[in-house]
């Protein structure tokens, strides 16, 4: 397909933001390898990490086909200000409750996004979306299971879940920062827009939270953590990138 200059820019920005979210959260989730509170959780976070990083790779491959650098160079040599990920995925893993709620918020949004993209006019992305949604279903199922169990288990677990939701909800809203190219993406039938996604997301998470006896903050207090999509990040991203790309940068020409 032939794109105008603005259209191409719109497509690239869109692909970068999706893949960067997956790569960064994939890396964060992998930090649970060897540290999970129980063995099954160690394996679950490691497997989810492997899925997300693998998924980001194939999106970076589409970008490469559109003229960007090769996937490894894209992943391991950019600085924080060149990343388009949202703040939610950048934060350190913290306590297990934060990592779990983060995955709960993010994976639901990701699942709905790829469901929408399965019908996208951007054919290579639509093909991936059809594949990814089946994999992400397991990430959603994992998060839902634990949110429901911990929300209802005892007073302490319920309080920790609710406190984490209260403290991280504005970060989660940052996922849906509107793109400057919304109308281009919309008119090209690539993506309906972040507002639609956010509304569907609220509809999807509310029933789960209700079963877990958990609530979302009052809409009057919603202050989305925007900035990530335009390259403004938290203090946590750059150190993470330095660690993530350390081995690659030792010898970028090495064969793996």
């Amino acid at each position, binding site marked *: 397909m032939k794109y105008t200059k603005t259209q191409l820019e719109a497509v690239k920005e869109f692909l970068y933001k999706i893949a960067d979210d997956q790569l960064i959260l994939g890396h964060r989730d992998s930090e649970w390898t060897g540290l999970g509170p129980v063995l*099954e959780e160690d*394996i*679950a976070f*490691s*497997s*989810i990490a*492997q*899925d*997300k*990083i*693998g*998924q980001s*790779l*194939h999106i970076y491959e589409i970008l490469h086909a559109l003229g960007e650098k090769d996937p490894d160079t894209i992943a391991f040599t950019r600085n924080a200000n060149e990343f388009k990920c949202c703040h939610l995925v950048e934060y350190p893993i913290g306590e297990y409750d934060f990592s779990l709620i983060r995955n709960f918020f993010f994976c639901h949004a990701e699942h709905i996004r790829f469901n929408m993209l399965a019908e996208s006019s951007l054919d*290579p992305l639509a*093909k*991936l979306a*059809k*594949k*990814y949604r*089946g*994999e992400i*279903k*397991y990430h959603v*199922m*994992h998060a839902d299971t634990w949110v429901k169990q911990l929300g209802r288990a005892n007073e302490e677990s319920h309080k920790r879940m609710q406190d984490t939701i209260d403290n991280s909800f504005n970060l989660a809203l940052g996922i849906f920062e509107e793109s400057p190219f919304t109308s281009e993406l919309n008119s090209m039938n690539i993506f309906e827009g972040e507002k639609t996604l956010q509304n569907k997301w609220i509809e999807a998470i509310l029933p789960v939270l209700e079963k877990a006896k958990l609530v979302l903050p009052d809409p009057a207090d919603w202050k989305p953590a925007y900035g990530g999509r335009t390259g403004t990040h938290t203090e946590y991203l750059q150190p993470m990138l330095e660690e993530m790309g350390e081995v690659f940068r030792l010898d970028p020409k090495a064969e793996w």
Partner: protein
Amino acid sequence: MEIKTVQTKNDILKALDDVKDPEIPTISIVDLGIVTGIEVSEDNFVSVRLTPTFSGCPALKIMESMVKERIEKLDVAGYEVITNFDTQWNTNMITEKGREALKKHGLAPPEHFSELVQIEMLEKVKCPHCGSRNTLLKSPFGPTLCRSLHYCSDCLNAFEQFKPVS
């Protein structure tokens, strides 16, 4: 092979039946359902298309090179092996022979699904050791991306399932 013969699709399919999943050596990549296209041109050039089981599957590159090695042994003018997502793999693409092969490896085969995979499908998986459905899902994630962990309340064995993916 001494005599110059043009390979047929079937010859290639038979040859690829020798290529096994490196993580589950009882099942061939054909029975796993990841061979999505075979073309042989008039001048004996072979083109094979594969599709990944999981996007993050580390065995993918290995399987690709195993396919190349196997085709090299045939009498062909040239070949290409292309992996893409044009056809998206799902566990319904595993053949009946493949399901038997999974059992031989001690894995419960994935249940057939229509339309979408339902979470309930993971809850009462048939134990590959004793056949009971009195089983529990321990975790939807196992030692490889394609497996989930279960426990049989009748024969008291832990087991793994090749989990259904749509």
